[in-house]
């Protein structure tokens, strides 16, 4: 079964856009046979298929702010993420990889998204 990566849907901050970019770097790339994403808002509406996906798969959440929407919604749906990434904390370890804006995360944001991808790829996630 494919692993599920779920970013936070953040629309107000660059860190939310970075979370989304990191997800697409996994799901729309050479890793697409291994990783898939689902729409986070579906978990708000108790979508049966999405709930089943997060309870039966290895789930990675990527959140852009301390509200941790992705992580909280996965748990609300009955899932338990194997890894919960906070984008600002990843930046703290690579301070030069600073994103620009929500409209354009810039080169720094792209590098930060790649850092997140590497964290997920290097994670030992056997459930």
């Amino acid at each position: 079964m494919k692993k599920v990566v779920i970013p936070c849907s953040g629309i107000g901050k660059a860190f939310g856009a970075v979370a989304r970019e990191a997800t697409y770097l996994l799901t729309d790339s050479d890793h697409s046979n291994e990783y898939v994403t689902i729409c986070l808002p579906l978990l708000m509406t108790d979508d049966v298929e999405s709930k089943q996906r997060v309870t039966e798969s290895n789930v990675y959440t990527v959140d852009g702010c301390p509200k941790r929407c992705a992580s909280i919604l996965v748990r609300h749906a009955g899932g338990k993420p194997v890894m919960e990434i906070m984008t600002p904390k990843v930046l703290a370890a690579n301070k030069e990889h600073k994103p620009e804006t929500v409209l354009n995360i810039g080169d720094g944001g792209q590098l930060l998204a790649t850092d997140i991808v590497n964290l997920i790829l290097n994670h030992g996630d056997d459930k």
Partner: protein
Amino acid sequence: MAFKPKVGLISCSGEACSGGNISRAATLEVLHYLRPTETVTICLPLFLAGDEGEREFARSFPTITIDGCSKLCAARGTERYSSTPAMKMNLEEYLGESCTSTDERWRLERSSELVDRIAQDIASHVNRLREEWG
């Protein structure tokens, strides 16, 4: 001069659906360029993950939900956790069935005209809701 409220824009931003990406792009266009002083937004999942302050959002502002597909997560989530939106937009009315594309970014990069058209329609609804307020 009569008070006119800001209008809350709530995009579904669905990650796995082209329509979600287009809803997000059109909403950002309105928030940043077309109506920057007349609109506000909130991340949709915050209605569940946040507290009462966030849930108060749609009770305080007239809101427009912008959904990428007919599952209408933004409209349903807003209604369930906050309050009934003043306007519900379903982008399938522009796109047809929009969640079948496998490469989300491909669709977004090639739909700027579409994003502009949807953004203009959102902006028109913003004007109308502000005019109708009170």
